């Protein structure tokens, strides 16, 4: 089984609005798969659907060989899927420590080991360990959100636009970290920032109007100007 995640013709509604019309994608074990595409194309909804915060109305989602289409979010998390949502969604009333503690699962590996790893990856988290998360800057909040996904030994982490609203210097740091993380944990990344996407990603899907319209390897994306023009408008 080389695919950690497969989505076949997944469709999703939000309320009465049809958002996803047919998402097909495969996330290979190891490395980073990236969803590219314009705003409003359904990338975030795709991640929400995978984690179970939104229920698909059609199609199947397979996690590590198991059908997880109908599972609620908390069960997906327990099966080893970490989520780093677009707005970070850190628990601002809790300390950094509590944010990590509340996320750590019994089946998520040795807490102390994971914690040491996370704190060495993001030294800032160590610095503010006992502080309420609301004091963190945007970049630090993003790091906490990623730390939270790494505190368990997850099979897959879904990361939604980590670069959003951050300064270039911090984005550069984040890119480095993401590249470190993907050595250990499979990443499904949604990213608008082309530089970040190509620096981290190994395989690419293009999502347009709720459908996956094109897929390619990094080499093709970097070399084929027509792909860039057609799907990214650059």
């Amino acid at each position, binding site marked *: 089984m080389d695919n950690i995640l497969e989505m076949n013709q997944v469709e999703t*509604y*939000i*309320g*009465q609005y*049809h958002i996803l019309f047919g998402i097909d994608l495969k996330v290979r074990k190891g490395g980073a798969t990236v969803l590219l595409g314009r705003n409003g194309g359904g990338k975030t909804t795709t991640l929400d659907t995978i984690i179970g*915060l*939104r*229920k698909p*109305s059609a199609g199947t989602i397979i996690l590590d060989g198991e059908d997880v289409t109908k599972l609620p979010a908390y069960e997906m998390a327990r099966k080893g899927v970490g989520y780093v949502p677009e707005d970070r969604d850190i628990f601002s009333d809790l300390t950094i420590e509590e944010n990590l503690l509340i996320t750590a699962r019994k089946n998520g590996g040795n807490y102390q080991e994971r914690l040491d790893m996370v704190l060495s990856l993001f030294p800032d988290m160590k610095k503010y360990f006992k502080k309420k998360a609301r004091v963190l800057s945007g970049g630090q909040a993003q790091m906490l959100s990623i730390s939270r996904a790494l505190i368990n030994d997850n099979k897959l982490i879904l990361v939604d636009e980590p670069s959003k609203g951050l300064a270039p210097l911090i984005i550069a740091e984040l890119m480095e970290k993401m590249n470190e993380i993907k050595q250990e944990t499979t990443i499904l990344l949604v990213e608008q920032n082309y530089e970040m996407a190509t620096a981290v990603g190994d395989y690419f899907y293009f999502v347009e109007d709720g459908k996956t319209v094109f897929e390619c390897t990094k080499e093709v994306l970097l070399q084929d100007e027509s792909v860039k023009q057609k799907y990214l408008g650059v």
Partner: protein
Amino acid sequence: MSKNNKLKWIIPLVAVVVLLVIPFISASSYVTSLLTSICIYSIFAISYDLLLGYTGIASFGHALYFGLGAYILAYTTVRLHWPVVLALVMVLVVCVIISFVISFITVRVKNLYFNMVTMALGQLFYVMSTKYYKITGGDDGLPGVKPLIANKTGFYILVVIILAVVFLFCHRVVNSPAGSVLKAIKNNEERTGLLGYNVLKYKTLIIQISGIIAGLAGVLYVSSVRIAYPTMLHSSLTLQALFMVVLGGTGTLYGGVIGAVIMKIEESALSGITTRWMLILGIVFIVVILFFPSGTAGIFKKLASRKKKTEQPPALPETKP
């Protein structure tokens, strides 16, 4: 005007004609007074539906206007010996002021505050009506109210006409351009605001119209029972309005009328058996909310749409905002 639209008007028209004719066929004064009370409650329910059904805001103190209308008419005519017209103007003024204060404080923030403020204000006025004996007569109420028309049948006909006018007026309001804005507000308040509509103005307007009509219902009611008493301000009356609207179907106007008919008939049937008919009403209300949240009108609509076999997207669990 399409055929469908014409048909739409035939039912209410027939209903009004039938209502007007009944007292001349049946001499029973019981029937007349039951119908009078149904019509008054219908007006009250319509005022509630205007708010809940067309803006999505639930008031938990709607009895406030009803009771104020009743008490003001009673106090000014019985104690102060004002002429009725002046008393009516006073009711209008007070309802406008109260509804303006409520909307001024709450329209800028979440609807939740409207829920809570109306609840609190309603409770306050109820307690005051029982405590300020000198003005309200306390639990004994203010008796001796002269009806607007002394003849029972005459009064009944007046009520039917007012009901028809109120219905027509509200129908106009909700089908006017302002009405479409209201529906848009109910669907998505933020987006409507972004489209450049003054959401606050429309909400304030509808809160006021709804308050005035409810006050009018109170005036008619006190005039028919000839005494104002604290229960007219009690939140159980608000529940009855809510019950009528939810049972009949929100956002339909006629749903309130259907609800009033069902409730009043249930009341008069049950009050012979048990004095605790509010219990039955409460249970039925909860069952309706749980299983038929769109009311009886919704059931008809559902049946109609099933016939058309339109494909509905699957229902999704709502997430917290």
